[in-house]
């Protein structure tokens, strides 16, 4: 009979729970991590689901498939994805300039990037509204062209772009700064044009970081409330975001309705973030194989 302690545990399980490692402290750190995550993240989330379970399934379905809810979710997720995509492109350009070139007041520009992080979102919302309202500086210029920004979905998009930019910039910046210049020199010496070097050498190296920045900007935009409600106009079915609808339901004391919408947002966000995460992992393994 074998010593039970010596019995090998099934290989896949061991790989999962007990990575063979010379680093001690797996048990205690894992325990702390799980406790912490449980308290801070899972407990409030499970409360959300428990509260939602107070209503029947039919009621739940009726709430989440009502035109107003569906439209709010569509606005929230659609515009968040669009804003994250815009930030991906322009954030990448900002990073490129910040990392690769020296120019006067570079430090000031660098500090400006972080302002959307720190500014109270309501302040941002009011400032953007003042600018884009038909009598604001920018709004007054756009109004003769028939373009309305404030109090429309376009205004929401601008607010979401504003708050998401630093996420892309700050995630990609260190990766691009670490990227060896010799790689581009090697590409050039092998006859690659500048666009070819960027497309075939630089971009694949920063793809994972770009995707992470995209995911963070998207997640932030989905949850954004303060800046959006000032510029959105909040017309149900036109420019009403899901977080606002939740608040409206809460003010009407329809708690289960609010949590039902929140549940849908939560699950949808989780699925989207999971997909982005897989994409990023894929880009990473394809990119580094490290």
């Amino acid at each position, binding site marked *: 009979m074998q010593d039970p302690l010596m019995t090998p545990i099934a290989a896949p399980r061991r790989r999962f729970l007990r990575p063979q490692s010379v680093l001690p402290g797996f048990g205690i750190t894992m325990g702390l991590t799980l406790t912490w995550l449980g308290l801070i993240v899972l407990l409030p989330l499970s409360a959300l689901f428990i509260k939602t379970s107070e209503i029947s399934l039919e009621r739940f379905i009726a709430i989440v498939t009502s035109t107003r809810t569906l439209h709010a979710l569509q606005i929230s997720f659609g515009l968040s994805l669009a804003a994250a995509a815009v930030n991906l492109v322009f954030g990448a350009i900002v990073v490129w300039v910040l990392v690769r070139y020296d120019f006067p007041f570079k430090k000031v520009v660098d500090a400006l990037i972080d302002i959307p992080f720190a500014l109270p979102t309501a302040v941002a919302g009011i400032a953007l509204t003042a600018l884009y309202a038909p009598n604001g500086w920018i709004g007054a210029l756009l109004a003769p062209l028939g373009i309305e920004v404030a109090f429309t979905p376009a205004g929401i998009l601008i607010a979401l772009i504003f708050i998401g930019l630093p996420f892309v910039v700050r995630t990609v910046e260190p990766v691009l700064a670490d990227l060896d210049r010799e790689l581009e020199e090697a590409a*050039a010496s092998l006859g690659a044009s500048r666009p070819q070097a960027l497309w*075939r050498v630089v971009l694949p190296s920063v793809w994972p970081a770009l995707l992470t920045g995209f995911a963070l900007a998207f997640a932030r935009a989905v949850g954004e409330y303060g800046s959006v409600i000032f510029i959105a106009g909040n017309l149900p079915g036109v420019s009403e975001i899901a977080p606002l609808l939740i608040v409206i339901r809460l003010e009407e004391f329809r708690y289960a309705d609010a949590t039902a919408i929140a549940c849908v947002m939560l699950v949808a966000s989780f699925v989207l973030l999971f997909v982005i995460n897989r994409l990023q992992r894929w880009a990473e393994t394809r990119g*580094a194989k490290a």
Partner: protein
Amino acid sequence: MTIEVAGVTKRFKKFTALDNVSLNIRSGELVALLGPSGSGKTTLLRIIAGLEWPDAGEVRFDGEDALARSVRERNVGFVFQHYALFRHMNVFENVAFGLRVRKGADRLPEAAIREKVNTLLSLVQIDWLAERYPSQLSGGQRQRVALARALAISPRVLLLDEPFGALDAKVRKELRRWLRHLHEELPVTSVLVTHDQEEALELADRVVVMGHGKIEQVGSPAEVYDAPATAFVHDFIGETVALPGEVRAGVLFHDGKPLGLDAAGVPDGPARILARPHHVDLAPPGEAPFSGRVLSLRTFGPTRRADVEIAAGSGKVVVEAAVPLDLALEAGAVVGLRPRAYKVFAANG
């Protein structure tokens, strides 16, 4: 392809990396640029490659102005010190890169690319690694990939920046011989940058010794070792015993006594008498030009070395002399030193 460098000067802010450097490299030669860090050797290589532009001077390939062409138009193979392999591509794609970025009529069909890459991978003896990624390779294997990648564009000039710097001693020696062999097989002019004199002397047809942004000497490995043109070259290449002295009207003095050594052509003033350790004989103290006290003795394998302290003007200098294994000598003894073959340079020259 011949490479002509004429009067090239390059400054980085206030630091002069290259100071009016001129050099002719013959077609098919393997030339080593040898020097300590900061001597400008890598800058010169990068200027030849087109990765850096000189502030003044000219670079010509086969008589044609190379500075008018960018790095991608010069068709030079450049091997970087840290290989600069593309991490997201496997070995095959790394080597194929230079062929895949070609456009229009220059673009080879896929089958031709595959064939050429496979031929190159066999040439550098890593065809079995084609599917691996750079992070899965050893240093020596990465070096071979970097070389194959540089050769893929059929360069007529191959430039190597410290190609063996990051490898351990044994692999380095093996790759060195292999590179020499490869150079002879290919119709290519090679320039190699190194700070390792052994590497330069063993590998190169000609060695260019550089120091402080200038070329100190150009010559065959034997020439720079046996007939160093300057004190810098003597110091830098091989081991050197430096003895102090002073030249007055063509005669060498030490501590006020004439030494009876030849100092032809050296201007008056303080001088350094440089010799290889095995060219300095031990002699009874009274009969030799120099004498000093033995501080310590070391034996390793067939060689034995003594640190000898010699009075020099106001202070003292310690030189390392070769001692025959069978000579009875102890620390504290006073010995004479007589350089058999030596060169005299002005002390500040």
